[in-house]
């Protein structure tokens, strides 16, 4: 949104379309949002054990600090009254902890981007600003964003947020899995600060094993479900809980990747620009035939 103006954008999209038409005629096997080469076995994830979280909100503070957002003092987060409000991630903070009165002891749930394996936002973004990285993170390029907010509509977890109160150059923002920290071998800021290790960082496949073991060893403590293992085709962030996830405001989602159907249609229509050209060719043909018959009539 910042550096790219309308002219550049149109230029680039025309050139992409042109290049695509020029190259080959094969249809894509996978949707754009699920490039097989990106979903490596070593991609990272975070396991969130909601039965452990104490709602100290240090993750909120660490997240803001790591992303250079106004964070204030750590002690400002001691106020636990806000936990009972239903908050959502916002441009001012990419993660929030909400509290749910499930049992005598309340359950605290941290929300942030789930970093889907088949992200709907990547699929929906018309300028290709979103991408899934080999680390497992779903990130976006601010410089490409045109502020259409398709990603917000597409996301099954309603994660991307928009600077609605900014008139000039509003941004889309969300949790980026601390990609800059991952690149230098660090772990996400929220994971690092969590006092009780509610958040366990590691390769996603290992985390699923850890979660299965926990469920097996403590059947009274956890329900037998890892949220994110299969939901919308799997997410990098996985959740364990002691009560039904629907009671904790988790959306009811199927196991199919969110972009599956929509993207097949959307991308199919314009695939390599063949269907439009074919359509134009057909229309042109009809016109040509009609014109010919008109000429014959005049004669």
């Amino acid at each position, binding site marked *: 949104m910042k550096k790219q103006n309308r002219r550049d954008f149109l230029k680039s999209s025309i050139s992409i379309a042109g290049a695509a038409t020029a190259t080959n005629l094969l249809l894509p096997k996978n949707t754009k949002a699920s490039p097989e080469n990106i979903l490596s076995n070593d991609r990272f994830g975070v396991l969130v054990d909601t039965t*452990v979280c104490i709602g100290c909100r*240090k993750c909120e503070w660490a997240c803001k*600090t790591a992303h250079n957002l106004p964070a204030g003092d750590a002690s400002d987060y001691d106020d636990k009254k806000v936990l009972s409000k239903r908050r959502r991630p916002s441009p001012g903070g990419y993660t929030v902890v909400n509290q749910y009165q499930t049992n005598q*002891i309340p359950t605290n749930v941290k929300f942030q981007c789930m970093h889907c394996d088949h992200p709907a936002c990547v699929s929906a973004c018309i300028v290709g600003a979103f991408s899934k990285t080999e680390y497992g993170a779903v990130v976006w390029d601010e410089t490409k964003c045109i502020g259409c907010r398709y990603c917000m509509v597409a996301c099954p977890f309603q994660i991307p947020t928009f600077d609605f109160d900014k008139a000039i150059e509003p941004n889309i923002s969300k949790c980026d899995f601390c990609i800059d920290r991952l690149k230098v*071998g660090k772990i996400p800021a929220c994971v690092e600060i969590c*006092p*009780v*290790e509610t958040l366990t960082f590691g390769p996603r496949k*290992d985390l699923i094993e*850890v979660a299965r073991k926990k469920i097996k060893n403590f059947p009274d403590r956890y329900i037998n479900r890892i949220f994110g293992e299969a939901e919308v085709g799997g997410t990098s962030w996985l959740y364990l809980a002691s009560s039904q996830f629907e009671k904790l405001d988790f959306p009811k989602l199927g196991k199919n990747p969110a972009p599956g159907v929509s993207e097949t249609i959307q991308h199919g229509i314009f695939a390599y620009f063949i269907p439009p050209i074919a359509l134009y060719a057909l229309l042109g043909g009809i016109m040509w035939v009609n014109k010919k018959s008109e000429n014959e009539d005049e004669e």
Partner: protein
Amino acid sequence: MKKLLILLLISVSIYAQHQQNSIKYNCNLCHECENPTKLNPCLKSCPRDEVITVYHSAEKAPDIIKIDLVKSEKDIYQAVNFTHKLHAEMSNMAGGCVICHHYNPVGKVVACRECHENQRKREVLDKPDLKGAYHRQCLMCHKTWKKQDDCNFCHLQNNVKSSAAKQKNKKNVHPKIETPKKILFKSNGYKNTLVTFYHNDHTQTFGLECKSCHNSDACAKCHNQNVVQVKNSSKKMDKHQVCSSCHDVKTNCQECHKSKEAKRFNHFAKTGFELKNYHSKLECSKCHRNGKSYSGLKKECSNCHSAWQPDFKHKKVGLVLSEEHSELACEDCHNLKTMKVDCSNCHEENFYPKHLPGKKVK
């Protein structure tokens, strides 16, 4: 001769092998599968409750432990001075040291840091790192009552001076536990009867320690009575379990289940044998040596005192004999069956108890 020698050798080696095999290792204690290998030891996952062999009293525990191993990029809080002994004592009623030290096969007590890595980014993910382990262990109890899962309850913030830290430590003493005197249980099961439980009787008269009944109480039982930690089991045996270590809960229901409120335990009213002086200080089991049964003893002294010890000190019964009496044999004054005193052998009748053969002591 040669054959005989070979035969001897073989038999010795078989015997030796047999000896080796007869040593019994309990592999299942640590390993899950039947054939653990070096590459795949298939160790049981923590907490390994049954793998605890080391026990010592809370008094022997270290007093205060400064927990300063965990360091991070930006430390918001100071290290905690953990009142270890105080917690060990409090844990007596909640399950003992085991509730924190959940793995201790042999040797000295294993500290948290010996199993839990002090590294959040690590390869073995199925047990929490040291920071997580510490906090989870504390919060397991602390978060069950209000306001105590606040970071500031244990930590001081970095900008607070150390004199304040010292004061905070001073305050960390568990207040005296108030004990109930009498609890009336209404039983729906057994003929709608009442069970009167005198707490004082059990702690003072019967000399029971707190932990002999309260061995798995959650802190929240007193600290947050809104939080019902233990679901009241409807099973009959679960309700009776606490009592069952002393009382016969299977057949003798009427002993505790009564139609109206019961009176306090009184040895004299129940048995006709009054407990005074030396006997009042004795543990029940000193006289009732027959394990669980507390009935069957007769009132006569000879039940227990079949033969008086030659070095018996009369002072124990609360009376120091005067010099001239101390030389006498027991039977000179006492009827050995009933231990009744009869002074008429030497003194005129009704001499005792007006005149004592010595001085009363306490």
